[in-house]
């Protein structure tokens, strides 16, 4: 099994975070309750947002001169 490049590790982390956010969204949409909206808007948004930020940072670091991608 090939070792992962740093950008690939970051993309994997980003995918994990966004997947968590999507799972929170899916579960919250199954429950009709004000708290499910709060969980979706707070934790779901946080996980998806964090994943996107990690992904964008991975892309930025990947194109910096002297850093492998």
């Amino acid at each position: 099994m090939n070792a992962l490049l740093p950008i690939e590790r970051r993309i994997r982390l980003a995918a994990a975070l966004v997947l968590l956010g999507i799972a929170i969204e899916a579960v919250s949409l199954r429950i009709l309750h004000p708290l499910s909206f709060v969980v979706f808007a707070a934790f779901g948004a946080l996980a998806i947002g964090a994943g996107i930020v990690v992904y964008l940072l991975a892309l930025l670091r990947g194109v910096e001169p002297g850093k492998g991608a």
Partner: protein
Amino acid sequence: MGIELVGLLAITAALLLALLLRPGMTRERGGRVLAFLGILLLPSLAFAVGFSAHVERSKKREFCLSCHIMEPYGKSLAIDDDEYVPASHVQNNRVHRDEACFTCHTTYALYGDIKAKIGGLRHIAVNYLGAPPDTIRLYKPYNNRECLHCHGGARSFESSDAHTETDTTMTAIKANRLSCMSSGCHDLVHDVRNLDKLEMWKGARL
């Protein structure tokens, strides 16, 4: 949850799972496109659609009544007396039963403007972290606008003797200077304090 949203979530999850298990796929151009779709584009879209679905669901009566404190208001819709405005409206299908709360309280809590939404979040905080008040009151006196959405222009409303009692009565009602809920008019609403003394509609399937 609509089939489109389920599909969107499933496709996004499948892409993310593939990236999670095989991040090396991003060495290829196709893999990088999939990463862009799976991590940035589709989740942003899924979040926006999910948010919209949540706001839409918050219009449901079941949503309002899911908090224990609102249960008596739900029960009040089964009062067996036509004088009670919410009960008679729901029982006679004058408003959609599924969206009965939202129809008459359009600016309230999570389904109103941004100020109302912040108020709705405050309700949740008070309900779970604080002490809910014994008596729930509207932030502002009930606005006739909510009644006039349907009744405005209706023959029964416009030609009612009570509404045309003086030259200024109708103008005052339409300008919200004379409340529809004024004493002696349509002043029987939820009356949750007296529910146990009131007759309930036996065959209610509300």
